[in-house]
C-alpha cells in the first residue's frame, strides 16, 4: 500500500475529491496548511504600505491506497488540481506498511 500526500490549491479541493472518486478512491484526510515555495503570497496593503506575504494557503490531502491505484490517483490529482500556474502544488508518494480500520479491526487491503 502507498500513502499519497498532495499539496494543492484550496479551491481545487472539490474537483480533486471528485476526480479521486472517479478512480475509486473515496476516503481521504484533509488539512489546511501554509505553503512556502516559489509562489509568493499576495501583496498585502496596510494603510498604504505594501507587504509581500510569503506564505500561501494550501490544502494537504492524505490518501491511503493500494499500490496498484497509485498511478491512476496521481494522474487524477494532477489533472484536477492543475491550473498551469505557479503554486499548483506537489504530490508525494510514500510507502505504507500497515492499515487498520478502527471500527472493525480489519487490516490492510480490507481497511481501505
Amino acid at each position, binding site marked *: 500500500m502507498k500513502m499519497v500526500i498532495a499539496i494543492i490549491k484550496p479551491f481545487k479541493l472539490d474537483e480533486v475529491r471528485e476526480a479521486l472518486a472517479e478512480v475509486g478512491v473515496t476516503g481521504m484526510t484533509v488539512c489546511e496548511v501554509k505553503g512556502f515555495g516559489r509562489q509568493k503570497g499576495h501583496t*498585502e*496593503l*496596510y*494603510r*498604504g*504600505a*505594501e*507587504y*509581500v*506575504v510569503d506564505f500561501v494557503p494550501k490544502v494537504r490531502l492524505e490518501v491511503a491506497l493500494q499500490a496498484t491505484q497509485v498511478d491512476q490517483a496521481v494522474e487524477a490529482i494532477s489533472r484536477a488540481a492543475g491550473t498551469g500556474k505557479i503554486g499548483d502544488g506537489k504530490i508525494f508518494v510514500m510507502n505504507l506498511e500497515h492499515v487498520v480500520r478502527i471500527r472493525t479491526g480489519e487490516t490492510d487491503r480490507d481497511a481501505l
Partner: protein
Amino acid sequence: MKRLSTLVLGCLVLAAGPVHAATAALDTGNTAWMLTSTALVLFMTLPGLALFYGGLVRTRNVLSILMQCFAITAVVSLMWLIGLYSLAFTSGGAWNALLGGGGRILFSGMGRATMGPNGVPEVLFAMYQMTFAIITPALIIGGYAERVRFSSMLVFSVLWTALVYTPVCHWVWGGGFLQQKGLLDYAGGTVVHITAGVASLVAALTLGARKGFPRQSMAPHNMTMTVTGAGMLWVGWFGFNAGSALAADGAASMALAVTHISAATGALTWMFLEWWRFGKPSVLGIVTGMVAGLGTITPAAGSVGPGGALLVGLSAGVVCFLMTQLIKRVWAIDDSLDVFPVHGVGGVLGTLMAGLLCSPSLGVFSGMGMASQNHSIVEQLSVQLQGVGVTLAYTAVITWVVIKATSWLTGPMRVQGDQETEGLDLVLHEERGYDL
C-alpha cells in the same frame, strides 16, 4: 469654546461666552442626552476602541490590547474622581490660567441637585468629561502596541493623564489660558487627538520598533474585529461631538451632522486614494479614513457647517493618508497603529480648519462664527495656531519625561525579545485570545 464653565467650589461661574448659560433648573431633555452621550463615549473605548485596535495586532497580542483598554478605563476613572476632575474643571484661583483647584476632590460638594451647565447635573457633566479622560490615554496604546509591559503601561497612563491630559484639558475647556484666548476646540482636537497622537509618536520613538519592523508583514489578525470597532467608534462619536454641545439642541444636531459628513468624506477619500494608488480599495483603508475624518472634525464640530465638513473630511483623507505613508514607510517609525498620522495630524488639521471654516462669510462653506474674543479670521487662526503649538510642544516634552520616569519606576517599558516573539497574551496575562 464649548464648555464655558469654570466651576468654583461647587457653584458655577461663567468664564465667557454666549452659547450655554448655566441654569439652576434641571432640563430633563438635556440631561437625557448627556446621560446617553456619556454611555456613547464610554462605548467608544469599551468595546469600540478595544476592538478596533485589538483586531489590528497579531493574534498573540490581542488580549494585551483589550486588557490595556480595560485597565486604563478603570484606573483613569478613579483618578478623575479622586482629583483630576477638580484640577481640570474648577477654578485654580491665581493659577487658573494653568490649572484648576481642589474644590471637587472626590466629587465633594456635588449632590444630586448640584447643577452644571444647561440644566444638566454637575455630576453628570463630570462623568461625561471622565469618558474623554479615559479614551485619550487609551488611544496612545496604538503607539507602543505589541511590545509594552503591562505594569509600565499602567504607570505611564496614570502619570500621563495627570501631567498631560489634565492641564491641557483645563487650558482649553476648564477656564485656562487657551480658553481665555478664545481657542475653538469643540470636542478635543487639541485636548484629545493632538495629545494622544504626539504621545504615541514619542512612545514609538522611545521604545523602538517592533521586532521585524518594517521588513516583516504585521497584518491585522482579525479585520472583522477592527471593522466592528470602527462601526462602534462612528456611532459613539455622536456622543463625543454632539454631546459636547452639553445640550440636546440645534448645536448638538449640527455637530452630529458635520461629524457624520466628515467621517463619510474621509472614508471615501482614503478609499479612492488607495484604489487609485494601489489598485484595490481595502477595508482597513476605508475605516482608517473614517477615523481620520472623525478625528479631524472633532475640534471643528461646533464651528463648521455641512459644506465645511465636506472640506474637513476631504483634507483629513488626503493629509492623513500621506502622513501614514511618510511616517511608516519613509521615516520607518513604528507608531504601530498609526495614532500620530491619524489622530495627531488630524487634530492639528482640524483645529486649524476650525479657525478658518468658522467664518460666516464663506458662502456654502460658512461656519458658526468666530469665538467672541476674536474678531477676524486672522486673529482666530492665530489663536488656533497657538493652541496647536502649545499643545504639541507641551505634550512632546512631558510625555518624554513621563516615559523616563516610568522606566525608572518600573524598569524598561518594553518586554524582552523572546517575550515579544511569544506574545504578550501568554507572557503577561497567561491567556490566549482564541481556542477555536
